[in-house]
């Protein structure tokens, strides 16, 4: 039987997910923003769901959950990755940095966060944590040398409000301050 979009609209699940077996939870340790967290997780838990639902760090956003939008971007060992396409348990022994980890302990924003505010680089803000994490990595990778390169190397982060020109301006401002810092 072929399901149609109409069937889907009625909310009938194609597959009934099996309940996680509580005896089979994985005990793992994740290092997030410099702090260790001990978690008991179903093996299916993505890094994104672990961050949001188990650690309570909801700054990282779930957009498409399929690696197409970039809203869930975090840094793992200082490289930008998509937390929705990685099982949490695969990240044991690595350093995870989320948007909550960018701010200094005295509350001073990261230059990239300040630049997004200064340039009004968002409207609804949902994609912004992913944009900022991606932009920080983009500068560190030296892929922010000019506007064309910034656009190419920020293409993994979609913004449905289309704040793109202001995002490019924000990256251009922050990259100078990040070099000085």
């Amino acid at each position: 039987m072929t399901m149609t979009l109409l069937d889907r609209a009625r909310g009938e699940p194609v597959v009934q997910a099996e309940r996680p077996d509580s005896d089979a939870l994985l005990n793992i340790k994740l290092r997030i923003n410099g702090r260790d967290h001990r978690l008991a997780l179903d093996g299916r838990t993505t890094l994104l769901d672990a961050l949001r639902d188990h650690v309570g760090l909801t700054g990282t956003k779930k957009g498409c959950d399929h690696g197409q939008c970039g809203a869930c971007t975090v840094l793992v060992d200082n490289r930008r990755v998509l937390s929705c396409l990685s099982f949490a348990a695969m990240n044991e022994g690595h350093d995870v940095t989320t948007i909550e980890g960018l701010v200094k302990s005295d509350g001073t924003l990261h230059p990239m966060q300040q630049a997004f505010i200064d340039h009004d680089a968002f409207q609804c803000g949902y994609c912004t944590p992913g944009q900022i994490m991606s932009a920080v990595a983009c500068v560190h990778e030296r892929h922010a040398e000019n506007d064309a390169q910034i656009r190419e190397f920020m293409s993994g982060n979609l913004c449905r409000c289309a704040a793109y020109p202001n995002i490019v301006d924000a990256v251009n401002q922050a990259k100078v301050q990040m070099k000085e810092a």
Partner: protein
Amino acid sequence: MRPFTLSRADTVQSAVQTQSEFEMPSNTATVHAPSQYVAGGTTLIDLMKLDVMRPQSVIDINALERTSSGEIELGSRGLHLGALVRMSTAADHPDVRKNYPMISQSLELAASPQIRNMASLGGNVLQRTRCTYFRDTSYSACNKRTPGSGCAALEGINRMHAVLGVSDRCIATYPGDFAQALIALDAQLEIAGPDGSRTMRFSDLHRPPGLSPHIETTLAPGELILAFMVPAVPWAKRSLYLKIRDRQSYEFALASAAVALDLDGDTVRNSRIALGGVSALPWRAREAEQKLNGRKLDDAALNDVAEAAFVQAQPREHNAFKVQLGKLTLIRALRQASTMEL
């Protein structure tokens, strides 16, 4: 997502052994193999969320990054690319950039920076088709998922589908870019399996869909790609990867060309041509190369080459444009390669 057991392999032997404990049922699509290796996870986890893949066992092989499978090495015999090297690392490597620009470009023009940081080279060549009928299990007709169930794409929306290497059982496009560079450069694979290690030509890895599109590669159950060996091709410095797509970045190819030229003045001594976005598997256009070798690179030659590359094309209702687009992509790639300053 269905439950599975996640295990970690610290050595090639333990990875292969764990994988081999799961027997592949007969007449099962390879996409439904009961145990799967995971490195970056960018294809596997996506398809598990869609219920296209349903492994009982997932084996994390990222620890193999600390072996030669995590290394890039240029030697007199050519380039060793470890299968656990990430796409971004290989794309940025100065030796790759300088000696094999088409490899570097094929990687850098693929996916997004985040995905390139995650995805391994071994996983990249095994990435699965983006055919929407394959990826959506509410379509029951998909010979790649369910042998003998039919193909919804034949009479469906097939704008993105392949025109070369297709069969009347499957017209799904092979979506990758890196594989086109590997097939153009006569790369070899180093593979570990239950019966030990072996090497294989990269061009023998992917199977044309033929009568059995559910069997996608020639890898035996349990086999694991350890590395790619790209032969030394000094003239591959004059090579490039041209990718044409619906949007300029972060998109799969509608048509692409990996080309390398060995020029003697304006005469072509030797050439390599592979085509992406238009074919069911990585596609080496040998007839096109033969038309080109020994000729001056003028308009007549370029047209002959493009015609030869697509002489076997079998377009469908919505993808006929790919024949003309593919020809023009190839002509532009060859023109650009001929004017590269070395």
